[in-house]
């Protein structure tokens, strides 16, 4: 397949385009999805018409719920949520109806809907415009949670998500949108539940997701020569590629987990729990979590930086765990 360099946002756009061409049951709606300023969806209304591509009023409960309903009766909705924090307005539709309908119906119905969610801090936007929240969605039974970190994964994972017959929360960090990478022009799938070894190493395993994969790679490069760091990106939190994590930790014996989501009751704790339950004897040092403390994200940039994980904090954690 011919590859060329495009942005994360363009990769998402291509995934929509390819899948909507393939399957006329795919419909798309959300706030301003027909806008030329929204990179993931621009041009789709012109291509597929306003029947299939619809701007929705600012009513998250209504349009997310409409996605759930349309999915149950055979459509393949892609619904966009402008920011993860705004999804909290629609918790019933997401965490009850979307997540549980398959099980509650004894498998009589399914919800093949993809809820695309923009996430992420680092833009000085304050406490209700900055959250990641993937841990919240991953906590609820019934939702697959997809967290791409590169243009290649963004396209392949979105295509897989659209084709998967279950409800998916597909989370796109805002700061990844301008990131460029090599992406095939054809449609392709990156399977859900298949981790990516972004960088091989032998001393320390760093498990990270979304934007933090990039910070982890920068940290690994900085300590190169002193510490050999393996960076593992699970790519989906549900399903979680446990084997890949256990394999890597089995090799290195040391674990750092990096997450922009809140520290407590989240992804970082889940990975540490997995390793302590299933690979306890392999660890030669206590694992370290580098995640956002459970504090609402402040507006001031200095305060925001204080709380968010970054390359420097990962480097410190890697050096510490490597010294044990």
């Amino acid at each position, binding site marked *: 397949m011919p590859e060329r360099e495009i942005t994360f946002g363009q990769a998402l756009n291509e995934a929509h385009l390819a899948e909507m061409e393939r399957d006329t049951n795919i419909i798309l709606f959300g706030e301003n999805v027909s806008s030329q*300023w929204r990179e993931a969806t621009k041009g789709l209304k012109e291509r597929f018409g306003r029947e299939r591509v*619809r701007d929705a009023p600012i009513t998250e*409960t*209504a349009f997310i719920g409409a996605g759930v309903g349309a999915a149950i009766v055979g459509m393949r909705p892609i619904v966009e949520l402008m920011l993860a924090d705004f999804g909290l*307005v629609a918790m019933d539709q997401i965490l009850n109806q979307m997540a549980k309908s398959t099980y509650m119906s004894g498998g009589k119905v399914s919800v093949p809907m993809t809820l695309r969610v923009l996430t992420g801090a680092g833009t000085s936007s304050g406490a209700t*415009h900055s959250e990641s929240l993937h841990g919240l969605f991953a906590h609820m039974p019934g939702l697959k949670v997809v967290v791409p970190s590169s243009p290649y994964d963004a396209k392949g994972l979105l295509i897989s998500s659209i084709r998967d017959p279950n409800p998916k929360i597909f989370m796109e960090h805002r700061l990844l949108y301008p990131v460029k990478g090599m992406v095939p022009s054809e449609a392709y799938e990156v399977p859900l539940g298949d981790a990516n070894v972004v960088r091989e190493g032998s001393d320390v395993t760093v498990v990270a997701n979304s934007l933090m994969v990039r910070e982890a790679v920068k940290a690994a490069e900085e300590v190169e020569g002193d510490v050999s760091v393996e960076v593992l990106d699970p790519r989906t939190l549900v399903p979680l590629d446990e084997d890949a994590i256990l394999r890597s930790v089995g090799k290195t014996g040391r674990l750092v987990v990096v997450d922009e989501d809140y520290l407590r009751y989240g992804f970082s704790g889940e990975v540490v729990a997995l390793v302590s339950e299933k690979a306890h004897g392999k660890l030669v040092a206590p694992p370290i979590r580098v995640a956002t403390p459970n504090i*609402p994200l*402040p*507006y001031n940039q200095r305060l925001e930086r*204080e709380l968010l994980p970054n390359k420097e904090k990962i480097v410190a954690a890697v050096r510490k765990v490597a010294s044990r």
Partner: protein
Amino acid sequence: MSLEEGKLADLYRVMVRIRTFENAVRKLTREGKIPARFGLYTGQEAVAVGVSAHLKTGDQIGSTHRALGHLIAKGCDLHRLMAELMGKEAGFNHGKAGPYHTFDPNTGALGANGVVGGSVPMTAGYALADQIKKNRMVAVSYFGEGGSNQGGVQETLNLAACWQLPVVFVCENSSPEVQRMLGHEIDYPQLSIDNVSLRAKNYGMPGSTHVGWDVEEVYRTAGRAVRRARSGKGPTLLEYKVHQLEGNLEGRLESNEKERQWDPIELMGKKIPRTLSDKIRADEAANVQRAIDFGLSSEEPAPEQAYTDVFREVS
């Protein structure tokens, strides 16, 4: 009936204060002195000013993500507001809030809100407390035509009518002709009706629609609704049509010369003597400059500030 000149000048002064402050904010944002871009109130000043002219310090407002006009009209200190927008320690909220989450309970600004429709249910709570305390205070709940559709807003209209709460709902409809969201001309309308106030009847409260660029009309109509709430007769839904003159949240919509005809400050300026309006503009420019100087010379919060206020200390 026209207002007397002194009253007009008072209203004009606050409108000019908001406009001057926001013009400064726009410039400071471009220069990187304010770290984030956010929604401004330019073109809507007559609404906040006409409403707030009837409010007392103890009356509370719930606002939106275009809060600066509401906050300034309610009487928030410009120095601390500017410091907050710059993320400084001397800001109302130690630089943790920024434009979307500013709280200033002492002046009854409770507060800006980053979630569309998010403040509206809480505002009913401010009014509930007033009702129980029998203090003859009222609450004002600001939201836009976009926010008017949110489930929480619709539920609150119902609750406020059922409980006859002393609250005035103020919907600022900024899509009076073409329906837009963040400057984007949407392909399906957000509203299937022309006037949001039509919904008032369904919830059992009075509702009416007015032009939001004429401060005298806002003043008169808001006065009736605030008096009604204060005297225990229950909620009202007021809708004001407004034109946002300086583009959308992200500055992508070119400001439209045609829309200048709805500039509430230009319209108002014609009604008071030139010498007075000149003086007011000069006063407010100096006022805002002092706020800028205060903000720029204020300290950044210490890193430790990031960790405080998650919980209040148990006393």
